């Protein structure tokens, strides 16, 4: 993958920033060139672009989104945006559910984690939305297990929680036209999987780490 930022990516990032009027706060860490996995709540198509645009440009060049293959390969435009513009790591979201036996589930799961780990490589960072799909913004859905397995597979990468606020009102799921309200993005303190920590406990803690960054509205 190239380290140059596609001009369309820069353009879309500028548009997303303009529409969302996003105010960025690094509350628990600073921008850093170490390898990271940013994980955030997901309510809008703008989420990834806004989060990505909040990074300094040298970090943007090496930060790739994880996205659902079924959705982003559906039309040529989506595929072009995902593959050529943002260098997304496309994963088969439905493949786990389709697995017939527990052995197969295990196999498919391993495969997805390997894909993500190799996308990290030795210099990239990833942006991940562990809810797996866009929500309404009222509350954060339980996290899928990929974050846990990836964290175990690549303990060297820092896990940075982030909360995107109000983007569900700017461009909610199912709408094409945005309403230019103001939004907030808060990066929190990195977390780690504790030694021997169970999957569900870690995932709930990670979800807590994201939701605790909420600055306005009901907790």
């Amino acid at each position: 993958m190239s380290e140059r930022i596609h001009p369309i990516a820069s353009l879309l990032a500028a548009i997303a920033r303009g529409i969302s009027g996003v105010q960025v706060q690094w509350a628990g860490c600073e921008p850093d060139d170490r390898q990271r996995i940013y994980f955030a709540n997901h309510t809008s198509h703008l989420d990834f672009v806004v989060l990505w645009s909040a990074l300094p440009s040298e970090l943007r060049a090496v930060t790739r989104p994880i996205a659902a293959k079924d959705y982003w390969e559906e039309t040529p435009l989506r595929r072009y945006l995902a593959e050529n513009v943002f260098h997304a790591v496309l994963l088969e979201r439905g493949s786990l559910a389709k697995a017939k036996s527990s052995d197969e589930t295990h196999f498919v799961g391993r495969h997805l984690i390997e894909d993500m780990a190799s996308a990290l490589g030795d210099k990239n960072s990833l942006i991940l939305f562990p809810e797996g799909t866009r929500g309404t913004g009222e509350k954060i859905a339980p996290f899928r297990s990929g974050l846990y397995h990836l964290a175990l597979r690549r303990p060297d990468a820092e896990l940075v929680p982030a909360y995107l606020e109000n983007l569900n009102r700017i461009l909610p799921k199912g709408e094409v036209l945005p309403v230019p309200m103001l939004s907030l993005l808060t990066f929190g303190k990195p977390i780690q999987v504790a030694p021997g920590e169970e999957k569900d406990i870690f995932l709930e803690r990670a979800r807590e780490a994201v939701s605790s960054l909420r600055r306005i509205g009901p907790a």
Partner: protein
Amino acid sequence: MFEALRDPKLVWLFGGVLSLLVISSVIGNILRNRQKPGASRTTIDNLNARIRAWWKMCAIFTAAILVGRVGSLILFAIISFLAMREYMTLVPTRRGDHRTLFWSFFVIMPLQYYLIGIQWYGFFAIMIPVLAFVFVPTSIAIAGDTEHFLERAAKIQFGIMVCAYCLSHAPALLLLKIPGFEGQDARLLLYLVIVDQMSDVLQYVWGKLIGKHKIAWRVSPNKTWEGFLGGVLSATALGTALWWATPFTPLESAGLSFTICILGFCGGLVMSAIKRDIGIKDFGVVIEGHGGILDRMDSLCFAAPIFFHLVRYYFVP
């Protein structure tokens, strides 16, 4: 462009604003240097931050007026957009309002300014109070979510009224054809903005200097009777003294600037009450840097339309 500079009275107004800025910067610096180290600096730092912001705002406003009618229109359209953005961010809307909000931002608000641009007074005057009034609740009803329906429709309509309709009356002054005042209407807009904003500033200054008795402490704890009376009277005096720049006699100018000051106060009070209601105080801190347009323009919201109609009624045949 820059035709405005050929109007000596306008140049005098700009000169006056510039001298005020210089004087206040000097005072701000003196106050900062006279401070004892370690003393609480918040009020004076806040004062200096305000003065710096005033320099920027005056520069932008001057540039817009120099560009001419279109410049003022575009500037106020941008102010309306930013004000509406703050307002709608803070007001709780629901998913079902999305398309109504899209129309408010991208059709209703620009159309209001376009109507001033093409000088269609009749449509300008009724578009938001009549057409948008019908459109907003209807489009929300079509979206189908009836939860808090009346509240949502009312809040959105109020936002469009304040941010687009009311504020657009300031540049709409350029529409008015006052006999003997042709081609000088930029001064009328400047007069409104100077008196209105100086009334705010002077109320703040008088309040800080001798303010004691609270007016409406529940709504706005910083407003005092001393600040209100001192500010309104001194800004009225200033407005009266600016009669030479307007089509008014000194007495008319006194009456109109007094009206602007009182309405400016009313606008500020109402917007404070709204902020209390939606508990924005905290939100205001969070969006610092982005926010504040609505706070700055709150006094103009009520003053602009009423000043516009007074001038139109009494001075346009």
